[in-house]
């Protein structure tokens, strides 16, 4: 069966520090991969998605970047965190089929202080 791992679960970082969140998927090949952010327990904002290795689509210009160095690995990064980067970051995967649902990881709760 397919599983998605996302870590860490919680993170407290000072303003101006770098960020690296990692997400890996097991049990499937060539998945679509996604990073969402949820601020203050509300809506889900799509940040990045990837349909293949090295292919990244950015939805919202901001202080973050994403990379997909391997088929089932998706990394969210920042060189210098801002206070506004605080939130709940969710990684998700789906099969390539157009109507397939998303399967989310447990999320990372990031607090920038």
């Amino acid at each position: 069966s397919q599983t998605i791992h996302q870590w860490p679960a919680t993170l407290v970082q000072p303003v101006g520090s770098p960020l690296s969140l990692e997400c890996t998927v097991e049990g499937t090949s060539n998945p679509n991969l996604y990073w969402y952010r949820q601020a203050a327990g509300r809506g889900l904002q799509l940040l990045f998605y990837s349909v293949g290795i090295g292919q990244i689509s950015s939805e919202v210009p901001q202080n973050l970047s994403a990379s997909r160095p391997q088929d089932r690995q998706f990394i969210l990064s920042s060189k210098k965190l801002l206070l506004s980067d605080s939130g709940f970051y969710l990684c998700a995967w789906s099969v390539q089929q157009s109507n397939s649902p998303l399967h989310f990881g447990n999320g990372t709760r990031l607090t920038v202080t």
Partner: protein
Amino acid sequence: GQQVMQIPQYQHVQEGEDFTTYCNSSTTLSNIQWYKQRPGGHPVFLIQLVKSGEVKKQKRLTFQFGEAKKNSSLHITATQTTDVGTYFCARRANSKLTFGKGITLSVRP
């Protein structure tokens, strides 16, 4: 144009009451998906609707896709405390899934 709207954002019901929420779009949807997020948890896929007028049931939950494929509804019969959480609708367009803002349901025991 690509958004799905969910209003209101919060609803409080007494345990045992029915609950209905709607998801609306200004453009025709090829499909609609519904997710539930428990407090402190991550969104979990519930159902997908594809056909005009489609109705699907999961125990006490009934999902419907409008005839014009511009809206969808979620109805919960006789709510229970286990129904608390935020319910999101989402539209899938190619590789992207765009979520509504969700409705947070609280149930008074």
